[in-house]
């Protein structure tokens, strides 16, 4: 890899009152690469990505994004930089429509004062239909409630949203948990398609098969540290199970 890493994580630490959840994690993510992040429950995967997506602040160490040091004050900062995160449950409001969910926090306004204003609902409907079609998901109406969609369809909408806002890095934290086999395949398909779209992917899963299926590189974490970092073709199942 000669290109400059899109994200550099340097000696990152995180303490939760007494728990040392990240113990000096150093890791580079390169443009247009899909990285699988694996590890047991409690290894610190979610903590790492919560810091990358601005939800938590690190206790020590730093992050650079496209070469510049950044410190995200909240998820908005990370989203504006181009980092979108898709969580197992957390990214959609089931009682709201697809169109409304697509634009939560980034609503197009017809006019407004001081950031508050009247929604451009027409634009929201049109753009959400297009965004959903772009990820090859076919939904009847942007007015359907997200609560009526299957788990896989919801993840599809979340991915469509991330694409719509032209993310440079897409982080998926266990997006396939609780999905049926067919739907899991669909989400894995989305992850595989990121490369073609020039998006850097960080895919977290505790299913190592899934990571082998759709990632270029494998990073394993255990007890708050990176214990393995190799290209998928240079490693195998046994080696990974060994270090975890």
């Amino acid at each position, binding site marked *: 890899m000669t290109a400059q890493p899109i994200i550099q994580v340097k000696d990152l630490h995180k303490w939760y009152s007494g728990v040392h959840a990240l113990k000096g994690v150093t890791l580079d993510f390169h443009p247009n690469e899909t990285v699988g992040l694996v590890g047991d429950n409690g290894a610190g995967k979610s903590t790492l990505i919560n810091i990358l997506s601005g939800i938590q602040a690190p206790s020590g160490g730093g992050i650079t994004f496209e070469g510049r040091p950044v410190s995200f004050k909240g998820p908005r900062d990370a989203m504006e930089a181009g980092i979108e995160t898709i*969580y197992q449950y957390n990214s959609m409001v089931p*009682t*709201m429509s697809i169109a409304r969910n697509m634009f939560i926090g980034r609503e197009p306004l017809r006019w407004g004062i001081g950031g508050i204003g009247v929604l451009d609902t027409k634009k929201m409907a049109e753009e959400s239909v297009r965004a959903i079609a772009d990820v090859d998901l076919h939904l009847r109406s942007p007015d359907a409630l997200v609560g009526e969609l299957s788990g896989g369809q919801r993840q599809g909408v979340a991915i469509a949203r991330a694409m719509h806002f032209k993310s440079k890095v897409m982080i998926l934290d266990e997006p396939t948990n609780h999905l049926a086999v067919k739907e899991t395949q669909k989400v894995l398909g989305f992850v595989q398609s990121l490369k073609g779209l020039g998006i850097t992917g960080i895919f977290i899963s505790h299913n190592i098969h899934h990571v082998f299926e759709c990632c270029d590189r494998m990073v394993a974490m255990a007890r708050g540290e990176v214990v393995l970092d190799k290209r998928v073709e240079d490693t195998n199942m046994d080696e990974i199970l060994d270090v975890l």
Partner: protein
Amino acid sequence: MKRFLKTYLEKPELAGVAFLVLLTIAFQIRSGGVFLNAANLQGILGLLPEVALVAIGVTLLMICGEFDLSVGSVFALTPMSMAVLLEAGWPFVPAIAVGLCVAMAIGFVNGVLTVKFAIPSFITTLGMLFVARSITVVISGGFPPLLPTGAIPKWLFVTYVGPGDMFRVSFLWFVAIAIGVSLLLSRTNFGNWVRATGGFLPAAESMGIPTKRVKIACFMLCSLLAGFAGTLQVMRLGAPLPSIGEGLELQAVAAAVIGGTALTGGIGTILGGIIGATLIRVIDNGLVLSQVDANWFKMALGALTVFAVILNAWLRKKAKSIKVETGK
């Protein structure tokens, strides 16, 4: 067609509308046609704004996922603050402005305590219910000040207007505020944040919505509306009693719930809250007209609340069972 039916069955205010129509017919028959005559409608519409404004605020706050049990006390404290200042010789405009600021300050305290300490708003506002009521009694000095005659522009708030003096000016205030808050909730990005915050807090937070500020704003708006409603009542009655609004908090919650607002947040409409409040007024008035012992009012209100929720749950289940394809 199916889609159409489903959309209607899913409307949270449907059960409330059904009850409203049924009760109106029943009372009209029982009262021998008196219920819908001009004089009685005038009575209903004259009082409606006071409960309905409180219900609007409580509904908005419940959609945002929080409760306010202190609205009844704010309903009394706001006009009491205004009256005390008027008695001290302040002009009307600064006096009412201070009163409404007191209301907003209480909403702010409710909101900040709730979000900063992450305690249920049920508790913070229960505390505020007692605190605000206590302050009301204390500043009234034990016996209520009289509103100085001529100090209040009655024409702007409580005189009768409209064809046949059908309603008070307060009704126009109510309609304007109802439309304003409905549009705020349904047509603005702020409304989107309110629904997201109440609908699923982790999602709202991970999408970068300032959920704490959204909640505090809703608490403040809720308190402001309760304070304004109390002020309307005091201007109508001509004297601020420290005991007005007792029990109003639960009536407002009942109104919201009858109108289809979910206790868990995220679901509900302002129109639903207004329909709920109207139902409460209609029952109150209809029972009197039908010469039923007035003590049955709470019984009727209680039964209605429970039935409305059951009916709503049933309608929603029906709507869910109507399968329309989400994919194609």
